[in-house]
């Protein structure tokens, strides 16, 4: 049974019905680890049925936008970051604060119409984790003192099965894995998959972390083998 008491505040308690990748949770959803999206880079993410472009500007500001350029629908997660702007790889359309289009290279003198903007999602970073939501929940995402970001993996198993394998339910599970006290954050993905974002004890030695990585891989293997048998 996961211990959700001390390190977890109310907003991360899961709703009674299990989340699937098709419905959009109202709470914060873990989407990525901060270290995995360095300054001036973009990466793909998911929130329920939404594809996201999660990106960090040159000044370090994180943002989560719809992964779709309003021009011809190209994924913005394939784009490039210059300064405080995310530009689409297709025609170089540049978007700034709030998803507003600020530059169209084919028309350098044109101020892009205000109507050209990318839908923006709520995003927050805490304890090395990037959380997203359609609309910002009332409370900030949880903090986890004593642990730091370790690894993100995808597992071809339902989030509930992953949670159960970790000895808990819902989004935040504190458990012992590979001899370490870890925090496991579970993100529902489409097509019956789940994202697993792991936080490990601060100051762990390299051998312990390698052992933890091996243990997570083993857990994934077992889970996926079990899913295959029931499929």
């Amino acid at each position, binding site marked *: 049974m996961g211990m959700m008491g001390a390190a977890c505040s109310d907003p991360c308690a899961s709703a009674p019905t299990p989340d699937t990748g098709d419905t959009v949770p109202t709470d914060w959803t873990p989407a990525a*680890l901060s270290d995995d999206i360095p300054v001036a880079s973009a990466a793909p993410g998911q929130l329920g049925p939404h594809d996201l472009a999660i990106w960090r500007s040159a000044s370090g500001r994180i943002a989560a936008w719809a992964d779709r350029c309003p021009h011809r629908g190209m994924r913005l997660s394939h784009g*490039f970051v*210059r300064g405080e702007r995310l530009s689409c*790889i297709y025609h170089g359309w540049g978007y700034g604060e709030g998803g507003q289009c600020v530059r169209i290279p084919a028309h*350098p003198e044109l101020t892009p119409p205000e109507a050209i903007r990318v839908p923006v999602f709520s995003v927050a970073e805490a304890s090395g984790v990037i959380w997203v939501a359609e609309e910002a929940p009332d409370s900030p995402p949880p903090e986890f003192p004593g642990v730091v970001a370790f690894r993100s993996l995808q597992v071809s198993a339902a989030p509930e099965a992953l949670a159960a394998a970790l000895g808990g339910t819902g989004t935040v599970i504190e458990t012992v894995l590979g001899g370490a006290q870890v925090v496991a954050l579970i993100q529902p993905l489409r097509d019956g998959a789940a994202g697993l974002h792991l936080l490990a004890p601060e100051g762990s030695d*390299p051998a312990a972390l*390698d052992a933890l*990585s091996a243990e997570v891989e083993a857990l994934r293997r077992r889970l996926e083998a079990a899913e295959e048998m029931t499929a």
Partner: protein
Amino acid sequence: MILYDYILSPSCYRVRLLAALIGRRLDLRAVDLHPGQEHLSEPMLALNPAGTIPVLTDDGLVLTESTAILTYLAAHDAPAWLGEDTPAMRARVAQWLAFAQRLTDSAGAARAHDMLLAPGDIDALRGQATQALRELEAALSAARRRGESFLAGNRPTIADIACFPHVALAPDGGLPLDPYPSIRLWMRAIRALDGFIEMPGIHRLHELKPEPGPMPEVIRKEQA
């Protein structure tokens, strides 16, 4: 040095990429692999009975197998790319060169199937490729924990160049790279190297070039 080459071949690109990174000029001979099947023509089979490209010739030496060609180029012009000269490091590089063959046979074959209509059991190929990508992700995430950005130490080696093309082009074969953040960061590190060249399917890192003209945000700040 003559390289029998195909612009769309990730294996040939391994060689072209290393050559560009180490400043070695190659005389490229285009082989009409698709649609012409020229790699299976009599002259090409005489050069390489395996019927594969790339093939490198250098003053009488004929080399096949892209990873062997990488080894030759590095030893010839830029030995630092072979990795640190210790038994462990040399073995690690060799391990990744062998691993690179699994990428060719899985992700490479999936791409050839999806893009150029090559025959193959696509589900099996994607399953094998996913397994290989997960292993690579685990290794690169361990490297990051050690403060290293590359596969064999903290500088790029032929291990990285051997693995990079088929990984970067995995989406061409229906293998998204979304699940692998450490692979994504490793690919950025390679694409940002001095002298890096792309191949079709791998975009230029436009972020490395400053925005042409003054950015409006900068002008506004200066006016404030």
